[in-house]
């Protein structure tokens, strides 16, 4: 019963609640300037985590047929074709037929393991929790598929796993009775199981160019700063860090990025804020509304019985 009042949603759960067992906060620095779009990370993640196949839909969206993160895609490589120079002073091609040189941006997206994680904050069952590594993980044996975390994530990372009905599902199966094969939500665990075994996450391991760098967050931030400096010096067009700043709307990402254009170009929100940032204000407001309701109902009694 002590669990009843435990505020597992509070960002402070790590490292405080772990005491001595807390580990340095681990995360990813995904450097898109060296991503070759090989999708090895996507496949390695699926292999390691035994994620089901996700349908074979050809999108025509460059070489991206995965489209987005979701229950069955915990790493997603985005492809953006642009008529923009890669570097501010030329580069690319200067054929007369082409007005502007081409560039092809690739970015491997993943759960951000936010410092203030909307998903975790709103989870009513405590299924989502913060690990000793400071990462955010869904416990698949606890999640009851309430779906609250799905719209709570500012990045659209989580989703409920809807698998096609099995052939032997009763045709008239009532809503209450097993209408879905899974019904829980899934997302990147930052390979919690591998971390526990002292291994690096499968996606980082598979990445041939070290676009995905795994390590203690402090170190990664330092490395990222140096990297940004180098790219700026080399006049890369649009180089910027995304989610590195601990003062941003989600308190900084545990898995942050170096991008070569604005976040929205890659399908990322430009200024994400954890929804629970406003939770106190919302409760205050709710309390007043509730009180107002009492008053309103009482007022209806003014004027008698008929």
């Amino acid at each position, binding site marked *: 019963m002590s669990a009843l009042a435990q505020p597992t949603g509070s960002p402070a759960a790590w490292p405080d609640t772990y005491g001595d067992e807390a580990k340095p906060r681990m995360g990813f620095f995904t450097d898109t300037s060296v991503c070759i779009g090989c999708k090895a990370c996507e496949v390695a993640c699926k292999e390691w985590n035994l994620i089901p196949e996700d349908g074979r839909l050809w999108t025509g969206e460059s070489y991206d047929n995965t489209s987005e993160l979701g229950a069955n895609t915990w790493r997603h490589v985005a492809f953006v074709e642009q008529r923009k120079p890669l570097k501010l002073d030329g580069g690319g091609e200067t054929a007369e037929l082409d007005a502007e040189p081409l560039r092809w941006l690739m970015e491997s997206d993943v759960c951000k393991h936010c410092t203030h994680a909307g998903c975790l904050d709103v989870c009513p069952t405590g299924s989502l929790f913060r690990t000793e590594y400071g990462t955010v993980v869904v416990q698949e044996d606890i999640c009851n598929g309430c779906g609250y975390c799905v719209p709570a994530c500012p*990045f659209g990372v989580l989703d409920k796993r809807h698998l096609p009905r099995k052939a032997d599902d009763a045709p008239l199966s009532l809503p209450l009775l097993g209408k879905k094969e899974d019904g829980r939500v899934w997302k990147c665990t930052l390979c919690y199981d591998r971390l526990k075994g002292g291994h690096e996450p499968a996606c980082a391991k598979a990445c041939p160019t070290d676009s995905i760098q795994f390590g203690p967050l402090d170190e990664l931030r330092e490395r990222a700063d140096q990297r940004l400096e180098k790219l700026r010096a080399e006049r890369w067009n649009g180089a910027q860090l995304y989610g590195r700043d601990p003062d941003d709307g989600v308190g900084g990402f545990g898995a942050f990025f170096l991008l070569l254009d604005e976040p929205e170009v890659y399908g990322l929100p430009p200024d994400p804020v954890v929804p629970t940032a406003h939770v106190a204000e919302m409760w205050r407001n709710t309390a007043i509304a509730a009180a107002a309701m009492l008053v309103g*109902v009482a007022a209806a009694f003014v004027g008698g019985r*008929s």
Partner: protein
Amino acid sequence: MSHHHDGSITAVGTQMDSYYGRPIVKEPVWQPEIPFYFFFGGLAGASGVLHAFAGLVGNKTLARRTLLIGAAADIVGPILLVSDLGRPERALNMFRVFKVTSPMSVGSWVLLVSGSASNTAAALELMGKLKPVKVAAEFVSALAGPPLATYTGTLIADTSIPVWHEARHELPWLFGASAASSAGAAAAIAVPVDEAGPARRLAIGASVVTLGLKEVMQRRLGFVGEVYEKEEAGSYGRISKLCTGAGAALLALAGKRSRAAAVAGGSLVLAGEVALRWSVFRAGFQSARDPRYVVVPQRERKAARG
């Protein structure tokens, strides 16, 4: 700008880039059960309050029938909720923790309290036994009612869905008012006209407030609020306005005299309130689906910060 050449899959709007027009935040995974739950939860909560005041002023018929309405709604509500879960068998996991950052967690406890209280009271009322316990239960139900009626507004506001989160000031009020109006309308149907005065007045008054609040909310939402003019949110919004307006008018003009008019007017108001929940519900989906609603306000926010 997006690079597709046929214009079919391309950036939406002119002030932003997007990733093939794909959503940034995930659409909620909630099913039709949820807007109905919002309605029944509201009905239950507000009925509890109505019941308490009716009891206080000695309007027996009103008190008894609102108690039964509330108790019934308090049974339907959880059934809907459980039905929506991906893993209904794990419904009780809702009570593993209590988290203030999770309105769903808070709401689950409130619902538990409210449901037990109203049903205990209703059962004792029907059996005519244990009066003191019944009174206590009624009191608890009345106290849990306003939170039960309003928390759902906060529940959806505490997400990253633009049209919900940005409406966090109005939503608990709107849902509270809608709940009150539903409870009033239901009671106005169930109770003979000469004892239904408070119910009728509540229905009329709350309907007016509801309609006004929705207008205010839409206006204040500005750019994002435009989803309420479109697609399903727009249709349900118009149905809601029409039904609630007509119902309230009918109740006001003829509800006092004719039971038939009261039943018709009350039903219209109820339909209007169901439609209102649907309008709000679908608006959330619509605003999630179109990345502009995420990107444009965030860009503005970012720009304003400099």
